[in-house]
């Protein structure tokens, strides 16, 4: 544990230059976008010149961009993520409020697509070229090609509007007063459709990768040797072929999790899940620079943690990997 913590610290410090570039870059990008937070606000409520000027002053937008960037970085140095102008609340509060929703949604969807994709990939890769392989490959590609919002809408029409088996949207039943297990089950019921919509789309990635990896391992000499030794086919598939094909998938998992942390604007919107993706979209729309950078930084931190976990997983799956860094 201590070793992992040391590694995490080293990774975090190592990533400071990258984070700095990301922060400055995002700041400048939003600065370059026409209109500021006050413009976005008065576009929705109206107001006269005096009010607009007063808002710019009270939201601290009257200073030059460089002054504001310097002030922001100085606050950041003190681990202060600043104040969201669009929500009129501290950035960290707003982000942390949404983070569990995104983690739940994305974690479950990643787990679903990884588990199901890998299993189906093993089924397909057990006999490359077989009818079962073709069917699974084509089916997963078709799913991958389907736009996420379309799949989500179809699922809601079938399961929520017509059959009424599952709730249409939201995180949980509103003001239900449920607690403990009942509340967890309620949340789980609400998560079925969004997790399925997201998970099914990414399923193909893992399936295709698993299958391709296995097809390659089948051609290797040690597989041939294993077959020659008369090891049962099932054992060859699982212990020799699949295990060796699994490593690239773990790499994919870490890449994918980084992507998923950004949240899925589309799925979160369709299912009214208050997550980071929607929040980021709102932050850009309302030109809320501190909020956007806050989201990016919190996501970046999590990506670093996830990558670390993946590295540890590597070491477990393949003893050749990672030993040097852990030792150093």
């Amino acid at each position, binding site marked *: 544990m201590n070793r992992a913590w040391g590694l995490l610290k080293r990774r975090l410090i190592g990533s400071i230059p990258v984070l700095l570039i990301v922060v400055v870059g995002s700041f400048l990008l939003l600065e370059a976008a026409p209109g500021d937070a006050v413009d976005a606000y008065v576009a929705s409520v109206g107001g006269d010149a005096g009010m607009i000027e007063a808002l710019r002053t009270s939201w601290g937008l009257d200073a030059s961009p460089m002054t504001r960037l310097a002030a922001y970085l100085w606050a950041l140095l003190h681990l202060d993520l600043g104040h969201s102008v669009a929500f009129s609340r501290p950035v960290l509060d707003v982000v942390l409020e949404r983070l569990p929703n995104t983690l739940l949604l994305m974690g479950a969807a990643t787990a679903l697509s990884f588990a199901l994709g890998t299993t189906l990939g093993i089924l397909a890769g057990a006999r490359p070229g077989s009818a079962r392989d073709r069917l699974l490959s084509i089916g997963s590609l078709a799913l991958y090609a389907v736009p996420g919002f379309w799949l989500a809408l179809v699922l809601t029409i079938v399961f929520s509007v017509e059959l009424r088996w599952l709730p249409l*949207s939201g995180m949980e039943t509103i003001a239900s007063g449920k607690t403990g297990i009942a509340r967890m089950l309620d949340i789980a019921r609400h998560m079925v459709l969004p997790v399925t919509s997201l998970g099914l789309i990414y399923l193909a990635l893992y399936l295709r990768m698993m299958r391709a990896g296995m097809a390659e391992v089948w051609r290797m000499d040690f597989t041939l040797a294993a077959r020659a030794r008369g090891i049962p086919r099932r054992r060859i598939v699982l212990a020799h072929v699949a295990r060796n094909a699994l490593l690239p998938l773990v790499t994919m998992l870490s890449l994918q999790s980084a992507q998923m942390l950004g949240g899925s604007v589309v799925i979160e919107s369709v299912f009214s899940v208050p997550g980071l993706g929607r929040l980021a979209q709102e932050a850009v729309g309302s030109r809320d620079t501190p909020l956007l950078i806050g989201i990016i930084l919190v996501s970046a931190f999590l990506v670093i943690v996830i990558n670390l976990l993946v590295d540890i997983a590597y070491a477990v799956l393949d003893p050749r990997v990672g030993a040097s860094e852990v030792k150093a």
Partner: protein
Amino acid sequence: MAGFEISRRKVLAGSAFLLASTALPSIGWSQARKGGRLVVAADSEPRNLNPAIVASNGVFFVSSKVVEPLAEASFDGEDGLEPRLATSWEGSADGLSVTFKLREGVTWHDGQPFSSADVAFSALNVWKPLQNLGRVVFKNLEAVETPDAKTAVFKFSKPTPLQLIKNALPALTSVVPKHVYDGKDIAENPANNAPIGTGPFKFAEHKAGEYYRLERYDKYWGEGEPQLDEIIYRVLPDRAAAAGALEAEEIQLAAFSAVPLADLERISKVPGIKVITEGYEALTYQLVVEINHRRKELADLKVRQAIAHAIDKDFVVKTIFLGYAKPATGIVPQNDKQFYTPDVATYGFDVAKANALLDEAGYPKKDDGKRFALKLLPAPYFNETRQFGDYLRQALAAVGIDAEIVNNDSAAHQKAVYTEHAFDIAIAPPVFRGDPAISTTILVQSGIPDGVPFSNQGGYKNDELDALIAKAAETLDPAARIELYKQFQKKVAADLPLINVAEWGFITVARDTVKNVSNNPRWAVSNWADTYVET
């Protein structure tokens, strides 16, 4: 207790058919109605929920149930008003004061009594200095005298028409509690996001990104009101979500056209769901072509007339609004009962005439069939404003004007059109709020600073119009004031500082079980005290 109520309601419902033929005691009905939870769709979560500071429909939609104005709009009340916190209002002959008698027996949700001090505080410390609309209407408000707890006398430094004040009552006069706001930074008060008011519902909680919950206020002054126990606003950002949620009975009502126009025909056929077009009469949105008069071509009246003739308003209403709008004749919408006049110059759809006018103006078609090019910026706020942008481009192409569409998001549009004037023509959806002086005259008035949204930022200046606007602002006699605004409409239609294309209200879609829907001209943003859900 809850179990008892349900069983009583069931008994009443069960015996309703027996009682129907006999004279039903009214008490029986009101008890049968009481209670219930209404779940409605909300598409946005305003940054500030205080309607005294932000007088906008997005804020009112939630907060008008909690914080009340002095009076609400009404279909059949005197002056189109129904008293709320004020029971009567009277102007002095010199137009320098208005006396409001306030309602007795009103309490704030925190238990404190409501008094004239709250009205004086709201008017002087909030509406006048802070409110987006109040800064204009109450700019000459000097003092509010409170001779007793139930009388507030507004004192103006210049004669101010009582007619304007009356028309401004529903939207501009939300009263907030002095004891919560006094002595603190009003703009940053926590009560702005958990409002305390005198309305039929108390603000209970807001779960960001999920819902708002309002609870029945038991000590509300209205007898037998409110009928509902609870109102829930579910945040549904996706436009397709509201229709599905209505069908799945997860929500019971979607206002402000949360169900897109294109879905209305289908959803109106779903049993148990009704489509309602009433209840937005005092919130008329106008589809307007804004013109940058700094462009030499557009400074020419003939060119503006040609553009007006090139637009087929009936086509716009039928195709873009699917019939849920009306072609506009001028700057005041037809459903306004006080000021509207149809007696103005009109511009029928006539491509040949438009072409002739452009030739006359000295912009003949060049070899490629084009006369000149324009930058067209449709406002991104509504589907309909964007779609009209696409239509206008084609309509202008038909008369040889090459319009290039520039799409922006809200912030960028606001900056490009209203601050930097980087447009030739723009499409805007301003709102008519019951009196031209509230938010309509600024669409054509000159001398407005840069950056003010929904105002004349096209560099248009017409001294006669400015004089008319100034005169109407201080004319006390209602009939004379109306006459001035009729002249104003005629002048605008004749000189075309902007082109009014269509006017629309929103659509409410609700389950049949929701009763007393759309029974006043600002229903979606009124207090819903008499609304109930039949169970």
